[in-house]
């Protein structure tokens, strides 16, 4: 079956876990900006093989489902309607054939995920169906979705608990979004970067205590941070080294830039910090104008938090799979 894009929304694209392991060829990872939200959306529709979902940005798309489908919405708080029905988030929803799903604006956060049972089944490239908008790789050469796009949905057997019928139906339970979406926008954990010692004292204080704002020039490649201009003690000439998602760079303008999912694979700007992996999805959920603050963390602390977070996610994914089988 196909899903037809009626309205594309502000910036919608297909995303999965991305294509790690090809940086030596100049190909970045891309993939979902909020991986746990993407994984939970898939889990809620019984997808277990890293299927591609739609990542929506600030305003979601309108989509027509030719055939009955199971969908789930996670991530940033977004309004969703089918006819007169409001479609809630963080649960599983059955849509009858011919449904038109209208996704609206986001009350908070920046990126929502729409998964469909079977996944969006476009041809994988280097093992991934992700769109890399910057490198122009993926469905339709990595461009955002457009009105008229026909997105194929993979075949998947019905689940024992499958909802069915000619009406919009919901599971009787839903997830608590709280652990997976940061409504309070707490400070993000930051590791000192390679060139932290070269920042002047005032800039070191500002980076770890100052209030920054997400610039409107932010995208899937990087979050640009407004609010304070940072300075090095002395100019630094560097040669390009590998770059990573989460790296906070300081270009000559003094405006810090945090690299995200579509980070270039090499970079030559001073690296003043590294956002803890566990907090990267939270940075990806900040929208232009939102505040961004950092507090210092250590590698040990970051690894401990990451391990705990991954365990918690794995447990939840297991619980969801069980409940889908039994409900």
């Amino acid at each position, binding site marked *: 079956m196909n899903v037809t894009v009626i309205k594309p929304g502000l910036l919608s694209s297909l995303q999965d876990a991305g294509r*790690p*392991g*090809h*940086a*030596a*060829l*100049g*190909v970045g990872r891309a993939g979902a900006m909020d991986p746990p939200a993407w994984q939970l959306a898939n889990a809620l529709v019984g997808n277990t093989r890293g299927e591609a979902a739609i990542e929506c940005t600030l305003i979601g798309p309108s989509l027509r489902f030719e055939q009955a489908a199971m969908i789930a919405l996670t991530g940033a708080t977004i309004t969703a309607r089918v006819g007169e029905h409001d479609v809630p988030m963080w649960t599983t929803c059955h849509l009858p054939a011919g449904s038109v799903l209208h996704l609206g604006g986001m009350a908070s956060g920046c990126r929502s995920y729409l998964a469909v049972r079977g996944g969006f089944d476009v*041809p994988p*490239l*280097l093992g991934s169906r992700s769109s890399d908008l910057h*490198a*122009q*790789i993926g469905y339709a050469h990595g461009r955002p979705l457009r009105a008229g796009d026909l997105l194929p949905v993979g075949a998947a057997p019905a689940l024992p608990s499958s909802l069915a019928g000619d009406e919009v139906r919901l599971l009787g339970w839903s997830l608590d979004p709280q652990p997976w979406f940061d409504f309070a926008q707490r400070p993000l954990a930051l*590791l000192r970067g*390679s060139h932290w010692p070269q920042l002047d004292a005032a800039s070191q204080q500002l980076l770890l205590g100052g209030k920054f704002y997400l610039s409107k020039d932010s995208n899937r490649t990087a979050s640009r941070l407004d609010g304070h201009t940072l300075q090095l003690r002395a100019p630094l000439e*560097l*040669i*390009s*080294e*590998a770059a*990573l998602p*989460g*790296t906070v760079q300081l270009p000559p303008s003094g405006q810090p830039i945090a690299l995200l999912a579509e980070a*270039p*694979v*090499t970079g030559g700007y001073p*690296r003043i910090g*590294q956002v*803890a*992996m566990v907090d990267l999805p939270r940075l990806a959920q900040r929208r232009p104008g939102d505040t961004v603050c950092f507090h210092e963390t250590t*590698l*040990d602390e*970051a*690894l401990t938090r*990451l*391990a705990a977070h991954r365990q918690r996610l794995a447990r939840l994914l297991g619980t969801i799979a069980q409940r889908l089988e039994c409900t």
Partner: protein
Amino acid sequence: MPAIQFEALAEDALLLRFGERIDIELNARVQAATACLRQRLPQVGCIPAYASVLLRFNLRHWPGADPHQQVQAAASAALNEAAATTATARELVIPVCYGGEYGPDLAEVAALCRLDADSVIARHTAADYRVAMLGFAPGFPYLLGLDPQLAVPRRTDPRQRVPAGSVAIGGSQTGIYPEALPGGWQLIGRTPLRLFDIAANRPSRFIPGDRVRFQAIDQDQFRKLAATHPA
């Protein structure tokens, strides 16, 4: 041989730094280390740059409190055990049509170098280059080995769209744009070869460590080759 510096860049990333210069010999060490580590630590991803190699590892493969220490120990051991292997580099010859519509900056480069255009072409095709790393865009090779006489500054007004296949000089480096991209390097010619095809078995024509030479071709040869390498 100077010691390698290790630096934890992120929870799953360790940088091995061999030096802080852009230098063909230093980069040869980087490529040899990359080849060795790929062979001996296949579960770790190696991303070579000019003078460093980034190791990306899966934390599940390195359980314990200090995965960076473990990876560093494993990488050090691998590099110490290895006989001074010189990775056997592939040699690629890249046909280039210099000047004219394909190399709009050739005259300016010649003027900046105080050479005539033919001498720029002769010097550019005489050198033996090495792919130091791929980056900027998928399949973009940063080539070391440019004749120092041909080093010219980047353009003050970068182009919004540099055509795919453009062969360019930026500072002391030369490179080839695999796709139409914005870019600030000086364009001296163009190759009809396709450099990157994401859907192919081996998506990138170049890999780090390759030896590269350029061969001058005329417009007729360019058109014939372009017809057999559709973009």
